[in-house]
């Protein structure tokens, strides 16, 4: 998994330690700790994993193993507006693939990547329970239904800063 190099500031290290402590620095709480830390930092770069490893007295290899196993965890920062395209069965048969291709083309990034300006990131998910609106796209917390490749540009325009 590719990673971004970061230098943690002292208060950030303190924050991670605090989170670990709130779980009694217990090795068995590794997944919960990583959840909390990711919600704090947005992602889990190698440097963050090192601190977690030290605090929970567990090898960093194992921490990295957990981070790479669960698709929820990420080592690259998400964009300010994370885009998720549903590729569940219903959305897929109604053309989600073409919508995804259009997003890739317009943003010039692949699934799992973040645009150079840090604005958008692209991911796929399986079913948000809105199959009647297929194909469905989520940007942040906002849901778009019946999206066509032609509508992609309009969606992105909404987020011009």
């Amino acid at each position, binding site marked *: *998994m590719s*990673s971004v190099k970061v230098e943690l500031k002292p208060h950030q290290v303190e924050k991670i330690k605090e989170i670990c402590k709130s779980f009694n620095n217990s090795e068995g709480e590794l997944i919960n700790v990583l959840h909390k830390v990711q919600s704090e930092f947005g992602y889990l770069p*190698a*440097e963050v*994993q*090192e601190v977690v490893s030290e605090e929970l007295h*567990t*090898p*960093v*290899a*194992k*921490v*990295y*193993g957990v981070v*790479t*196993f669960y698709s929820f965890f990420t080592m690259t920062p998400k964009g300010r507006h994370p885009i998720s395209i549903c590729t569940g069965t219903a959305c897929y048969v109604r053309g989600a693939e073409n919508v995804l291709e259009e997003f890739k083309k317009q943003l010039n990034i692949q699934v799992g990547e973040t645009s150079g300006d840090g604005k958008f990131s692209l991911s796929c998910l399986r079913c948000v329970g809105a199959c009647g609106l297929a194909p469905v796209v989520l940007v942040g917390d906002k849901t778009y239904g019946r999206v066509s490749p032609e509508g992609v540009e309009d969606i992105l325009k909404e987020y011009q800063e």
Partner: protein
Amino acid sequence: MSLVNIIIDDKKIKVEEGTTIFKAAKMAGIHIPVLCYMNLEDLNIESKPGGCRICVVEVEGRRNLAPSCSTNVFEGMVIHTHSMRVLNARRTVLELILSDHPKDCLSCAKSGNCDLQDMAIKFGIRETPYDEFASTSQYRLDTSPSIIREMDKCIMCRRCETMCNNFQTVGALSAVNRGFMAVVAPPFEMNLENSNCTYCGQCVAVCPTGALTEVDHTNRVISALADPTKKVVVQTAPAVRAALGEEFGLEPGTLVTGKLVTALRTLGFDYVFDTDFAADLTIMEEGAELLDRLTKFLGGDKSVKLPMLTSCCPAWVNFFEKQFPDMLEIPSTARSPQQMFGSVAKSYFSEVENIKREDMVVVSIMPCLAKKYECQRDEFAVDGNPDVDLSISTRELAALIKRANIDFTSLQDSDYDNPMGESTGAAVIFGTTGGVIEAATRTAYELHTGETLENVDFKQLRGMEGIRYATVDFKGIPINIGIAHGLGNARVLLEEVRAGKSNLHAIEIMACPGGCIGGGGQPLHHGDSLKLAKRAEAIYREDAGKPIRKSHENPHIIELYEKYLGKPLGEKSHKLLHTHYFDRSVHKIQI
């Protein structure tokens, strides 16, 4: 524990409740095939991720097949271990594993010694039908001074992970990613060289396929032997003679010392010497250092640190340099026997024989993979010329002997050359856990008390338990000794020392299970840990049969000090036979 009645392949047996189907079957004489499962009973190491599903069996009344390695028996259980359904399922599982496995068996380092290959033979696999559907994963080849990781061949049995994390507590390896990309790797998929790896080689020792192998230097040895301008000197570690025979079909525990010497001479080595000679030398230096530290400590000198830790094991040295950099003053400064040998061979011996340093090649035969790294350390070279040029494992030597068309089992015995081939029983036992400290005790006792030991067997120091404690009475002074094999056990003792809770005076540590006899370069045990105990017995048998059993009585060692070194811990000894340690902790992430 209560007993339960089960029927397994029509055999009615009673077994303890909580027994796995696999173990129950074994008791009934039925050997269910396993691939990911590993049980080193004598060492208390069990790994059963239940991941490969090769060991599935049919249990009457159960809908799906049960993995026998991780399913417990219950009262009245009826099991079929080779029904049509079971055999078909196993074949499919194997075909699926093979679909994502390279098919380069002809040129694979593990060919002929591979559990996966054995399984394919056992099941009569002639084609691999799922190849076209599998996306064969490809990983970067990772080469380090000792170990090669060829992860395309990893089948995710995770035995290496168990050894690295649970047994050794090194923590260099973990399963990462998922699906076809799943693999066992160091953190952030960095190279092994940049990780916490100690090169103990226990991952290699348990790997069922060619995913983890040693760096092979046999061709370099052949080149050196073929070079008319080089004088090639070879040294053999104590544990090699107790295991090499297994590679030629001899019973585990067969001593092949004499045949080993003949084989090396036949291969063309100019001088066939013994690392045991250097082990005796190690005892002279380490024993003197222990006595010196003890005398000062008991005399109230607060600057002296105790316990003293042995320093013969290179994986152990890597372990404390990487994980206990705050305790670098505690281990003995004595170099390992391999390095003492190289240093003396390229100084004293090269002077005696009038061979220029650059014209001499020193090869070591070791049960160990960390020795490959050790001999490449900068501090063990003079002007870039290493004291020990090449280190090959017991397995590599066996391969060399086979390649040279030598019929090993029919060889006559012969003796080592002198002066560096003479050794005592004390040196031989360096190959097994407890041996180094027993050898040191034999010498330190006599030097300290001035009396001759009536019985040199310190049985309280022997055994296979991971951590052992013993007290030896030095005529009124009780010397507390600790012994650990396996780095996880070493960590326990080390944490006690760090916390100031240890009352030990001396600690012996060997990284591998059973000591060097279970080293990462030894013939593969394929899960049979009883082999290690047999090798240990062989080592003690060789010791008992030696005319001299105390290092300080080795006549060639006495001569070496008289003619060349002076005295233990003297100026020349210090320069040639001692070393210092470095903080090699992995602070910075190097991806």
